[in-house]
């Protein structure tokens, strides 16, 4: 009986309760963060891939972005806040990596390293593959402001507001730049 009472006292002790609460909070944090990764991983990967054109680099950048988000997760609990933050940080990290890559090799060779066939399914024609390579080259030749808007706008699930939030420009400017970029591409792709 006395053992039982002692056990109950131990269960009710503040230290035990605090440890349990801390453990629960940590579990909740992990679960919450895991859910955010699942919701955002595809878009984040595509943002990085759109800039880098290389799946391995895109994966590393996406992982780095999520690790940084994990460290700041307390202030990024809200879904919309998390989404905006992770988009921005992934894009910045991808740009930084691209600058580093450019010091070592040209953009064209990076695309070749990615492997053109990896980015197209087997049903695509050879013409489409050639056209896609040309499209990438023409995108690279666009002025930077237009290129950035285009690279982000072609990512699935990215609205003009999302692109504007990443680049720090209004939605109207995003739409206008996107239109100009497409026009230049259409002209160039003769």
């Amino acid at each position: 009986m006395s053992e039982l009472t002692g056990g109950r006292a131990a269960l009710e002790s503040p230290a035990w309760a605090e440890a349990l609460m801390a453990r629960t909070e940590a579990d909740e944090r992990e679960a919450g963060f895991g859910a955010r990764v699942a919701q955002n991983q595809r878009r984040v990967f595509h943002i990085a891939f759109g800039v880098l054109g290389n799946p391995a680099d895109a994966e590393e950048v996406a992982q780095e972005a999520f690790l940084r988000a994990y460290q700041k997760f307390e202030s990024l609990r809200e879904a919309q806040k998390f989404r905006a933050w992770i988009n921005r940080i992934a894009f910045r990290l991808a740009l930084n990596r691209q600058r580093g890559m450019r010091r070592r090799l040209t953009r064209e060779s990076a695309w070749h390293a990615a492997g053109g066939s990896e980015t197209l399914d087997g049903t695509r024609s050879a013409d489409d593959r050639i056209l896609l390579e040309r499209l990438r080259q023409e995108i690279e030749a666009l002025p930077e402001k237009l290129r950035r808007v285009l690279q982000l706008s072609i990512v699935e699930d990215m609205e003009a507001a999302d692109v504007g939030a990443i680049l720090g420009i209004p939605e109207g400017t995003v739409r206008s730049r996107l239109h100009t970029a497409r026009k230049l591409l259409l002209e160039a792709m003769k």
Partner: protein
Amino acid sequence: MTNDCSKSKDELLEAALTGKTAAGLEGHLRNCPRCAQELAALRARRERMDALLPLVAQGAEPPPDFRARVMAAAESAGAGKRGRFWGAAALVGATAAVAAGLVIGFAQRRKEVRTARETELAAAEKLAAWRAPSDVLLKTPGREFLQRVPKLGDSYLHLPAQTPGRQPERAMEED
């Protein structure tokens, strides 16, 4: 190609992109089969471009275990952070201990040096103040005069006008 054709180049691009044809361009297209053909080609190209553009960003997918990898990396980063904290704490502690040891050692050494110097100084002062008991016997009559430092223009040979020890002799000479 007419002058109107070169003017309508931009309008053709706009029409291909937006799907809307400006009123002025419509009139021109009715009379210019070449521009009408150009517009059709531009529209076809725009469709292909729109189909391929998403592939620039979405041509690859994250690996199926991406989430698991991120979670594992986050967990190890968290553990590493905790480990780094304790590592940093140990490093700070060790540094503080070494610094304290150095300070104490330096202070001790300084104290020893100062004590030795003080002892030496005291001994030197003592030695300087020491007078041999026989010094009194070595006192000569001209000692005071020889110890005197002459002023500018003065001479060692100039004898003082009045020396208390010699006064009786002078008195005898005068007599």
